[in-house]
C-alpha cells in the first residue's frame, strides 16, 4: 500500500507531546470532575470580595470585546479545574487580554471593586495554585503569546508571558538557541507561569535556576500599576533587584506580562542513556561517577522506579528499551562535539556496566529514539491519572535518603493504595513521591499528610522542591521556612496587594 512513510510512523509512534488542559482533547479514562474545592475543604472561607455582576461584565466586554470575555459555565469549566484533577473552582468569568495595557486596566478595575482574580497560564500547575478556589475571575494570559525579540549574539529572548515553552524552544532553535528550562508540561505551560512558580525541570542540573536565567520582568501590580523591570541585560546592579519579587511568588505579588531570559546555545550533540539498576545505591554510585567522568557534558540525571514506569508502560503503552529492573536511570549529555561526547559516554558506560553497577541499558543520539525514551519519564504524571486519584508530592531530600520516603510510606499505606512510588530529578535531590488510588479518600490523605512533611522537615528538606505552594500547601510552609521569613512574606504581600485580590487563599498561610 503506497503511502508517505513518515505519516505512517507518526500514527504508531506518537511523538512526545504537551498535555492539553482541555478535557475535550484529553481522552482520559474517566472524565469525572473533582469535588468543588469549597466542598472538599469547607474550612476555607470565601473572602470579603465582591460578587461578579452585569456592570462588571459590561466593563470587561467594553474593554476586551465579546469574544475575549467567557461567561458561560461550560466554557469556563476547563479553567476551573487543575491539571491533576485535584481541585475545582466555580468561576463564571474568564478574561483573555492581549496586551499589558489591558491587564493593567483589568486589575485596576478589579482592585477598585474588590474583585478577586486568579491569574492563569497553561494551567499545568500541580499544587492547585492556577485555578480559582471559589468564584475568582480567571485572568488568562494565553493570548499574550508574542515573541518580542531574540538576540543571536547575546542569546537574550524577550517575550510575552503567555508564550508556550515548547513554542519558544522551537523558535529559538532557528537562532541556534534553546530555553534554559525544560519540563514534561512544555507543550502547554507558559513562560509567565514558569517564572511565577520558579519552575525547575529536567535541565536544572546543567542550566541552573530561573532565578539566574531571568534577566528582567514586566509585571502588573494588584492596583493595575505596570512595573517595568524588563532590562534585557546580563549585568544591571542599579538598586534592588525587584524582578525577584515575581519569580516564584506564584502570582500573589503581581501578574508577569513580559520576560527577558538568558538562553544557552542549542547543543550540537545530544545523547541520551537509559539504564537499569538493581538498587537505589547503584543509582547514587552511577550519579557520583557520572559527575566525575561525564562532568561538563552532563545535562540531566533522572531516576524512575518500577511502579512509575509500570504506569507509563501499562496505561500509555510506551515501550521500555530494556527488561524490567527495580530502578532506572535516565541521563542526558549535551555538548559541542558528538564524537568527543560519544567517546566519554561509551567509556563511562563500559566501565559502569563492566563492574556490575549498571545491569543493562541503551544509549542513543537519534531524535526519534530520544523522544520515545524521554516519554518514559515525561509522561509518568499523565499515566498516573489513569489510575484514578493522584496524591502528588514534590520534596527535596538529602540524596542518601532520597528514596526513603517511598519505603516508609509503603509500610504505612500497604495494600490500601494502588501505587506508592517515586521518580524525579535525582540530580537535584528532588523526588516526586506519588500515591494513587481509585478514588479520593480522606482517610488516605490523612495517613499521608502531614506525615510526609514532618518526615521531610526532620531531614531538613523542602516540602515543595519545584511545584510551589499554591492552594495545597500554605499550612505546611512552616516545615521549611522560619516564622520570621513567613512574617516578612506576609508584609510584602500587604505592601504589594493591600486588598489581597491576587490569587487569594493561596501561597501564604
Amino acid at each position, binding site marked *: *500500500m503506497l503511502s*508517505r512513510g513518515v505519516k505512517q510512523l507518526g500514527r504508531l509512534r506518537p511523538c512526545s507531546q504537551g498535555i492539553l488542559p482541555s478535557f475535550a482533547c484529553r481522552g482520559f479514562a474517566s472524565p469525572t470532575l473533582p469535588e468543588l474545592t469549597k466542598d472538599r475543604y469547607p474550612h476555607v472561607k470565601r473572602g470579603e470580595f465582591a460578587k461578579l455582576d452585569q456592570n462588571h461584565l459590561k466593563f470587561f466586554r467594553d474593554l476586551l470585546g465579546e469574544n475575549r470575555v467567557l461567561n458561560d459555565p461550560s466554557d469556563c469549566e476547563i479553567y476551573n479545574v487543575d491539571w491533576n484533577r485535584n481541585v475545582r473552582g466555580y468561576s463564571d468569568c474568564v478574561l483573555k487580554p492581549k496586551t499589558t495595557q489591558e491587564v493593567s486596566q483589568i486589575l485596576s478595575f478589579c482592585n477598585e471593586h474588590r474583585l478577586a482574580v486568579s491569574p492563569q497560564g497553561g494551567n499545568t500547575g500541580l499544587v492547585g495554585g492556577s485555578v480559582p478556589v471559589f468564584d475568582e475571575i480567571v485572568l488568562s494570559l494565553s493570548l499574550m503569546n508574542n515573541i518580542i525579540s531574540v538576540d543571536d549574539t547575546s542569546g537574550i529572548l524577550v517575550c510575552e508571558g503567555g508564550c508556550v515553552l515548547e513554542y519558544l524552544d522551537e523558535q529559538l532553535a532557528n537562532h541556534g538557541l534553546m530555553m534554559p528550562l525544560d519540563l514534561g508540561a512544555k507543550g502547554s505551560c507558559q513562560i509567565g507561569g514558569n517564572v511565577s512558580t520558579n519552575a525547575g525541570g529536567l535541565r536544572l542540573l546543567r542550566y541552573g535556576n530561573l532565578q539566574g536565567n531571568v534577566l528582567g520582568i514586566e509585571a502588573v501590580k494588584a492596583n493595575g500599576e505596570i512595573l517595568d523591570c524588563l532590562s534585557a541585560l546580563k549585568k544591571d546592579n542599579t538598586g534592588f533587584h525587584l524582578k525577584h519579587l515575581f519569580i516564584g511568588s506564584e502570582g500573589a505579588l503581581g501578574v508577569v506580562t513580559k520576560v527577558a531570559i538568558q538562553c544557552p546555545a542549542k547543543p550540537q550533540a545530544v545523547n541520551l542513556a537509559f539504564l537499569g539498576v538493581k538498587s537505589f545505591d547503584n543509582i547514587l554510585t552511577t550519579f557520583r561517577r557520572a559527575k566525575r567522568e561525564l562532568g561538563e557534558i552532563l545535562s540531566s540525571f533522572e531516576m524512575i522506579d518500577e511502579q512509575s514506569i509500570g504506569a507509563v508502560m501499562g496505561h500509555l503503552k510506551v515501550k521500555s528499551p530494556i527488561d524490567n529492573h527495580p530502578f532506572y536511570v535516565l541521563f542526558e549529555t549535551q555538548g559541542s562535539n558528538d564524537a568527543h561526547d560519544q567517546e566519554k559516554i*561509551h567509556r563511562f558506560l563500559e566501565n559502569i556496566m563492566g563492574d556490575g553497577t549498571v545491569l543493562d541499558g541503551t544509549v542513543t543520539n537519534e531524535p*526519534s529514539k530520544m523522544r520515545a525514551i524521554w516519554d518514559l519519564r515525561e509522561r509518568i504524571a499523565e499515566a498516573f491519572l489513569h489510575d484514578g486519584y493522584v496524591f502528588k508530592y514534590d520534596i527535596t531530600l538529602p540524596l542518601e535518603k532520597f528514596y526513603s520516603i517511598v519505603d516508609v510510606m509503603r509500610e504505612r499505606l500497604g495494600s490500601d493504595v494502588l501505587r506508592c512510588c517515586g521518580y524525579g530529578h535525582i540530580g537535584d535531590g528532588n523526588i516526586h513521591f506519588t500515591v494513587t488510588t481509585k478514588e479520593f479518600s480522606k482517610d488516605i490523605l490523612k495517613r499521608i499528610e502531614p506525615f510526609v512533611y514532618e518526615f521531610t522537615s526532620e531531614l531538613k528538606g523542602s516540602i515543595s522542591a519545584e511545584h510551589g505552594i499554591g492552594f495545597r500547601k500554605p499550612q505546611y510552609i512552616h516545615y521549611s521556612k522560619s516564622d520570621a521569613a513567613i512574617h516578612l512574606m506576609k508584609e510584602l504581600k500587604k505592601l504589594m496587594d493591600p486588598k489581597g485580590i491576587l490569587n487569594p487563599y493561596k501561597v501564604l498561610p
Partner: protein
Amino acid sequence: MARVLVGVKRVIDYAVKIRVKPDKSGVVTDGVKHSMNPFDEIAIEEAVRLKEKKLASEIIAVSCGPTQSQEVIRTALAMGADKGIHVEVSGKDYETLQPIHVSKILAKIAQNEKVDMVIVGKQAIDDDSNQTAQMTAAVLDWPQATFASKVEKGDKEITVTREVDGGLETIKCKLPVVISADLRLNEPRYATLPNIMKAKKKPIAKVTPKDLGVDVSPRITVVSVEDPPVREPGVILPDVDALVAKLKEGGHV
C-alpha cells in the same frame, strides 16, 4: 538455515523537521541528525528474530552511501547483524543514487555472499520510492514478497502475509527470495549496551560500486525541491444556506 542480507539506509531522523534549501536544489542535510530508515530497522529486527529461532545463520547488513553510512551499519550490528558491508558512494554520485543502482548493488552482493534472503524496508522515508526490493528481485530473478506484515520460514520456502489495499494477502515463495518489510511486521528492539559494545568489534568491509561492476551514473536530474503548498485557512460560515451556496460556487455540488 538461511543466509540473510539486509539493506539499511541512512536517512534524516523522522522526528526532525525537514527544511528545503533556499536554492530549491534539495533539503538541508548538513548538521541534521540522521538515523536508520525505520522500515529498515524492522527488516533487521526480522532477520535477527529468524536467527534467534535458528532459521538464519548469518546476517549481513549493507548500506550504500558516504562515510557516515557506517553509523547505520553499526546500529544494525548492535541490533544483532553479524557483519557489515559499506558500499562507498559520496558527493554528487550519492545525490543521484537511485533504487535502480542500489538494487543492482544489492543483487551483486547477494550473489557474492551466496545469501538466501534479502530483506529491506518497504520504502525509505526520504524518497518514498518503494522500488528497491522489487528491482532487486527482478535483477536476481528471485520471487518477491513485498509489504510483508508476517513472515514464516519453512525449509525451502517462506509464507508471507502482505498488506495490500484490499486487506491481507498470503503467499508462498520458494527460497531464495526478496522481502520488503512493512510497518506491522514487528517492533524493532533498542540496541542494548552489551550489544552496542560487541558491535564495535564486528567487521565492516568497504567496497565501491566499481568493485561490484555497477555503474552509478545518474539516470535522473533533480529539477527542483519545494515545500508542500501552505494549507489555506478554513472559512467559518454563518448557516447551512451559506454552506450550500459556497459548495455550489466551488463546483463541489
